């Protein structure tokens, strides 16, 4: 019953896929951003599980970079969502086809 590395890896894979399904089936821009955050967190869990089981602190450093990029991504993403909502009055990605051809 001890918790091994593969427990954490399977759990992270499950979380990643939950987020991936969300990105595919939802059409609300904010929900998709939340699902991307979930996927990034699954990757963080993998990094930390490896860092702890291989006794290497470098994995923890990379988690910090992932957190930084996630914060930047969510700030810019939500700014775009708010600007779009102000101009088009919707956040449904199927109706936002301005840059499609």
């Amino acid at each position, binding site marked *: *019953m001890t918790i091994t590395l593969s427990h954490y*890896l399977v759990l992270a894979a499950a979380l990643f*896929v939950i987020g991936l399904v969300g990105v595919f089936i939802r059409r609300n821009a*904010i929900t998709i951003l939340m699902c991307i955050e979930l996927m990034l967190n699954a990757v963080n869990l993998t990094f*930390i599980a490896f860092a702890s089981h291989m006794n290497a602190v470098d994995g923890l450093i990379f988690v910090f970079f992932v957190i930084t990029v996630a914060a930047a991504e969510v*700030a810019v993403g939500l700014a775009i969502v*708010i600007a779009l909502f102000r101009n088009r009055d919707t956040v449904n990605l199927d109706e936002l086809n301005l840059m499609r051809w």
Partner: protein
Amino acid sequence: MQIPAEAIVFYALTAITVLSGLVVVTSRKLVHSAFALVFAFSGLAGYYVLLSADFLAAAQVLIYVGGILILILFAVMLTHRIESLDIRSETLQLLPAIAGCGAIVVLMLLAVYRTPWAVKEPQVLTQTAQSIGSLFMTDYLLPFEVASVHLLIALVGAVIIAGKRGGQ
């Protein structure tokens, strides 16, 4: 049979995290998704404690639960009339999505179980904050500075994009 405390905590956290992850994806109301995300992130912070990454657990709570989720909640309240349901809970692409994601799950599980990971005896990391700090200031100094400039640029960009248009 004695069940170790670590296993109990792990499975309890797994229940919380996976269930709230499912709520994030399937809930029709945006606010419910955002609040389920709080529980998912807190559960992940619990795993970090379990993996003896104490400093990162604190950072997770501060940055994700305290920062990013507040930002998401602000965006939800700024863009959605709170009472309105999420108009379309799209099921159109459900089958291809589940087929593709199932294939990805199979690939990842194969990778997890087929690879002979060079796992050492699980060791408790001690003083992670100190070693993280000295690594940031020595081996990872350039990525650290690039990350801070990246964050600054992103924040200025977010202000410009979301702010009033072109100084009118």
